């Protein structure tokens, strides 16, 4: 099996697994308690919080809110900022955001928050000035993802944040960095954001845990209500093992990033070069100089992505169309639609994504297998 769907999820890093083991066993405490068992668990998550704050460049550990995943972090950022203080603040975001952002924007829109969606160009990029121009006196939060999860296109969140601030310094800027963190330098400084969402499992941590960086002073209405954990911003007993595992994965991820970029970038580039040697008509959908190193989002003119993915699965290659409905059927991607792809073009696109376990040879092997399947389909 050649797994090339690391953008969907990736292999658990051994560092994360090891860090978690005690918290799945003898260190079972609930951090919210006064006794020794609780204190040990509390110490673990607060240590993790300090590490996470440092890794993302936060000024204070309490700027980190642990959540039940990347989707929840995005929900908290967008709905939390829009509904803060009982208000109905506006949301400005892009047409290519993950559903975690777009559906949350639609949700707050139903509650009366004005929502504005900014378009992208053919390669999925925003114009930062267009984002700033969409900001109105009602706007409470601007959400621009760091990199798109389907195409890998890098969005200029830094410039968008600066442009937004120039227009309205009090607007919160959120970035969904779920897909980008593993390979891009994502920090408070690099993104200029007030809110940054991360998901553990995309980095080699366990599933079901994530975090939101919340700059001090940014007020959020909680979306999960209950016992008031995480300073009231996210109730619910902490997923102690998950948090510890995520932060161990983050640490490894940041330490390994340069090597990841060169090793995975080499695999991806060899993959695309070999593929296009055999099939010169294959199109790379993201801008070559502005995309994640681990993503290869390709269009195969005249080939059904659905068929290609099934045939690849049969020959032991796991890839994806980047967008699937609840049933698992390949569906038209809102991202490609926003990029101006027609239905037929969009149905010819496949995402190959490489991960921390990838070696450069994997790129050659993958290209060989894809070409073999294309040959059979011709």
């Amino acid at each position, binding site marked *: 099996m050649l797994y090339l769907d690391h953008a969907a999820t990736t292999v658990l890093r051994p560092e994360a697994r090891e860090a978690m083991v005690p918290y799945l066993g003898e260190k079972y405490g609930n951090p919210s308690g006064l006794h020794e068992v609780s204190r040990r668990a509390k110490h673990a998550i607060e240590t993790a919080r300090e590490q996470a704050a440092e890794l993302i460049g936060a000024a204070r550990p309490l700027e980190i809110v642990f959540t039940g995943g990347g989707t929840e972090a995005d929900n908290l950022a967008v709905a939390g900022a829009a509904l803060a203080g009982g208000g109905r603040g506006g949301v400005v975001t892009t047409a290519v955001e993950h559903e975690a952002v777009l559906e949350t924007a639609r949700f707050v829109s139903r509650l009366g928050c004005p929502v504005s969606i900014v378009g992208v160009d053919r390669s999925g990029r925003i114009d930062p000035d267009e984002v700033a121009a969409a900001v109105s006196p009602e706007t409470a939060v601007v959400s621009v993802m760091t990199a798109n999860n389907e195409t890998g296109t890098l969005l200029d969140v830094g410039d968008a944040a600066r442009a937004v601030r120039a227009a309205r310094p009090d607007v919160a800027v959120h970035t969904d960095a779920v897909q980008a963190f593993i390979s891009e330098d994502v920090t408070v400084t690099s993104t200029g954001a007030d809110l940054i969402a991360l998901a553990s499992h995309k980095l080699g941590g366990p599933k079901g845990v994530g975090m939101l960086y919340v700059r001090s002073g940014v007020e959020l209405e909680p979306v999960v209500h209950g016992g008031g954990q995480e300073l009231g911003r996210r109730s619910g007993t902490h997923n102690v093992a998950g948090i510890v595992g995520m932060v161990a994965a983050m640490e490894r991820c940041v330490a390994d990033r340069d090597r990841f970029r060169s090793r995975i970038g080499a695999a991806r580039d060899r993959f695309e070069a070999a593929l296009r040697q055999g099939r010169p008509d294959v199109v790379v959908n993201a801008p070559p100089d502005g995309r994640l190193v681990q993503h290869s989002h390709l269009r195969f003119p005249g080939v*059904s992505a*659905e*068929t290609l993915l*099934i*045939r690849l*699965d*049969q020959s032991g290659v796991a890839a994806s169309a980047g967008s699937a*409905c*609840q*049933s*698992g*059927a*390949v*569906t038209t991607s809102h991202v490609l639609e926003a990029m101006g792809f027609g239905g037929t073009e969009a149905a010819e696109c496949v995402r190959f994504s490489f991960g921390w376990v990838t070696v450069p040879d994997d790129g050659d092997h993958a290209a060989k297998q894809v070409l073999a399947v294309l040959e*059979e*389909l011709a």
Partner: protein
Amino acid sequence: MRALVAMSGGVDSSVAAALMLEAGHEVVGVTLKQWVGPGGAMPVAGCCTVADAEDARMVAGRLGIPYYVLDYVDEFRAAVVDAFASEYAAGRTPNPCVECNRRVRFRALLARTDELGCDVLVTGHHVRVRRDEAGYHLLRARDREKDQSYVLHMLGQRELAATEFPVGEMTKTAVRERAAALGLRTAAKPDSQDLCFVGAAGYRDFLRNGYPAAAEPGPIVDTTGAVVGSHRGTIDFTIGQRRGLGVALGGRRYVVAIRPGSRTVVIGSEDDLLASGCEVEGATFVAGRPPAYAKVSVQLRYRSRSVPATMEPLGGDRWNVRFSEPQAAVAPGQAAVFYDGVEVLGGGTIGRATGRG
């Protein structure tokens, strides 16, 4: 051999997949996503639901075969749903299962069997196939109560050569027993209903909501042309219908004709419903050519009996059919399927009833 099994999430296709595995073949399971409800999600009630796909997925998992959901929403809408609505609006009584089989399953999906890396398409339909020197023969199912040959009459030699129906040789009881013995969760699942896409509200609400043009009010007249009432749209009526006419007259009254041009519904007595024959359009034959003999039997509705009849060519793919005795409720739009005993000869669409009593 690698078999592509169309798995609906029901017991028949579950067992079909299991039987292909037992026969030593590689098996790939697929469910066709055919219909989306409001907001683009798969429907949660009726057939073709997320729950059905989950049943199929779980059965595939239990059998250890790869499983995919294929997107046939556009094909299904064009070939089945829109056609269903426009036929209804034209005063006919279409059979969407026939169109789905003709245009989606045994055309679009069958054409992809090869590109999906498979050699044969397998479904859970109750129908049998025999092969001899003359070619492939399509026969009624072993379980006559569950026979689906009526909705598969359009299959020709090419389709039959590339298709297998393993449960057609089994009774439904035996299918359920086999599913239970294999521990398949679909063993006791109720049979799916026809009109999979309309959901719990029924096809009339479905048409009324989605195709309002088919729901314009009009008059109800008797066979002399006298107006005896009014209706909220011809889509509320099918030929032979007795209930819901909203007209109180002496004796039982039935819908005997629908005239969409004037949005008129004609009602009459049981005798007015009888026809001595019908014209059939768009006929196809399993053997690739019509039978050399005229005496056949014809089935005019799904899950009904066939009646002796004589068929005469009207030219092209049109045929005139005369029944051995008058038949009630011969509905334009339904399929007329020709049989010789248990063998399907072919069939087409009823264009009009002839020789009204």
